[in-house]
């Protein structure tokens, strides 16, 4: 018993002061991409060509990055001869609709909006989520799990992961939805009582991630279920996931 108390004293109180203060992110953290299209040489397609998931499309205003596909690898920023594309430290990446996943140069990035007033009245103070991995590599899963540790202490926001869909207000889904998980995912969704929400976490759950070309998967959650929140990343940083959840609950404003 003495040892436990001594450890308690040595380890101290370590829950992050977030959202009052932002935790320090690693210096090489790759968050929201910033595109300076005015630097792009005429006809240059380097970033689009090196992107392994075809996340970059050259639009009218310059390179557009689809965060639904983006694995946040440094390939494009390293390949660009002019430094026109770079990752910022901005971890707020979640959006409410798949159209908002596209980062267009010169246009404001539309972050996730709060759920509607009626849904917020029902779920806003107590949100119970059932997690389903539908082909996730255990990357997103472990960083979702981290939110339950005492560093992040998800419970203080009224959010909890529960063991049964029947106890849940919604699903948090990772993975590209493998063909082999489609039925189990649909059944789990059906078992959640109304009103319910769906949160897709990670590049796979958004649009198939590194497996987007494979027939063995369906290309993301929205191919199967209506999605209320998209959280980009491969895997998203726990802070990015928590930011998305809090925005959905209307607890964070820009």
């Amino acid at each position, binding site marked *: 018993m003495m040892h436990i108390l001594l450890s308690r004293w040595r380890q101290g109180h*370590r829950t992050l002061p977030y959202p009052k203060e932002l935790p320090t992110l*690693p210096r090489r953290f790759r968050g929201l991409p910033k595109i300076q299209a005015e630097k792009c040489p005429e006809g240059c397609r380097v970033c689009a060509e090196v992107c392994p998931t075809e996340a970059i499309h050259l639009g009218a205003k310059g390179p557009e990055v689809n965060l639904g596909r983006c694995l946040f690898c440094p390939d494009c920023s390293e390949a660009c001869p002019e430094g026109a594309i770079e990752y910022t430290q901005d971890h707020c990446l979640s959006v409410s609709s798949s159209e908002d996943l596209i980062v267009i140069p010169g246009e404001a990035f539309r972050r996730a909006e709060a759920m509607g007033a009626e849904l917020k009245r029902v779920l806003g103070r107590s949100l119970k989520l059932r997690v389903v991995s539908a*082909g996730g590599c255990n990357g997103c899963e472990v960083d979702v799990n981290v939110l339950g540790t*005492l560093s992040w202490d998800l419970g203080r926001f009224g959010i909890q992961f529960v063991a049964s869909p029947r106890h849940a207000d919604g699903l948090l889904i990772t993975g590209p939805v*493998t063909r082999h998980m489609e039925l*189990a995912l649909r059944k789990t969704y059906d078992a959640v009582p109304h009103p319910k929400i769906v949160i897709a976490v990670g590049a796979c759950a958004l649009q198939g991630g590194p*497996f987007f070309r494979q027939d*063995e998967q369906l290309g993301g959650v929205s191919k199967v279920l209506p999605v209320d929140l998209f959280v980009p990343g*491969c*895997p998203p940083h726990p802070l990015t996931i928590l930011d998305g959840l809090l925005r959905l609950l209307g607890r964070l404003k820009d």
Partner: protein
Amino acid sequence: MSSQAMRVILNGQTLLLGEVPELPIQAFRDAILEGTRSGARLACLCAASDLRLFAVLAGDAEKCLRVAWTRLDGPRYPALTPECPQAHLFEREIAEQFGIIPEGHPWFKPVRYHLPWSDQPSPWGRDANSLPAVMDFFKVSGEEVHEVSVGPVHAGVIEPGHFRFQCHGETVFHLEIALGFQHRGIERALLGGPHPLSLKQAETASGDSSIAHAWAYCRILESLAGVEVSSRTDRVRGVALELERAANHVGDLGALSGDAGFLPTASYCGRIRGDWLNLSAEVCGSRLGRDWLKPGGLHQDLGPVMATHLGPRLAQAWTDTKDAVELLWGAASVMIRFEVAGRLEATQAREIGLVGIPARACGINVDVRKDHPYGPYRDHPIKASLAESGNVHARAWVRWLELIESQRFLADSLGALAGSDPDPRVGPLPSLAADSLCVSLTEGWRGEVLHLALTDGQGRFARYKIVDPSFHNWFGVALAMRGEQISDFPLCNKSFNLSYCGHDL
């Protein structure tokens, strides 16, 4: 004919296909049977197009691998499994991927529930809509015997799989595990590669073992391209792998503690695991080591300034880890739970070809870093961490001993890297050797990760085989549960903590 008929190959070596002995099926079988009888492990048995079978035996004591191949006359051959149980899942996989039937297989069931890649019909008469775990399970019948079925969607934040227990009251007679829900088609995606996405797919084969798989993949490409990386690059890769191991071991010790209801270690380790992951994130921007390695070198380097900066953070993470984990060993109520649960005998472990933590927990002295040393482990050897009793406690204890070794390696390496200048950035690799075979092994935190590549006449992948340690070890969970209380399943399962997607690929 014996395993001497096979060709000796070192970890990461490339051979021209012409240099790999082609044996008649009888001699091929004899070589594997004789080799495994005299202590070698079947590290890989797989099929490739045109009815070819390839085998890799690992002679861990003699520190070498042996390879051979055979060409079948038709899509069937006499199964090895009745005489060599560790072949059981490999032979089922061969049947599923290529429609080649191992005749006389005693446990002939699908592995991932997909159709053969070739035009062969499904050996089980399944169609494209067949789902995993829809099959006949082994059944115990009798008065008061009941069946418990769990999954694919489990109660925790965990990957999907189906578990079918045959129970008598609390006691589990038998557990059958049906996986395949996570199948994303990685090996099929790698055909014709390397593609721009291949490295990302290797990193996500089992996403908590990104470095172990990325490193195995990089070494395949480097060997086939005839490129050697610098010893400094190897050292940085070693840091990446040992950080991955440390983070996962800390997380597992915390989770095991939580499963035994001992909350102090569980809650501290949950946080401290993040401190280890954040060290990786400092170097490569990703907590899981994504985009750290790349074929030919490093995607992101660990320069002297960063090595100096990481030193004190490593020391702090280690101090906190020791404090949290030592509480666990002092908690009698936890120790008694750990010691009575999930025992596996060493003979069973050898027969089914266990690797990694569960093997070492039975006193089996295998560790790729020691037996088939690669990269930094040639000059900076790692001691294999062993325990004897084969139970949950032994698997937890092996993790703790490995943490001590990893921490030592990390402190030494960061010290060395603090005094050495970064390597120049590497360009793309030259083209890969044509018509060649390369086998690359790394020791991930769960155990042996094997990648095998076969190139065609243009140096593209004609076959790429990935064997995650979980592929060898899932059957160990089933055996460890025999005679146990079903309520101990979470604890037993966590003590293995195997990968679903690493198995399902």
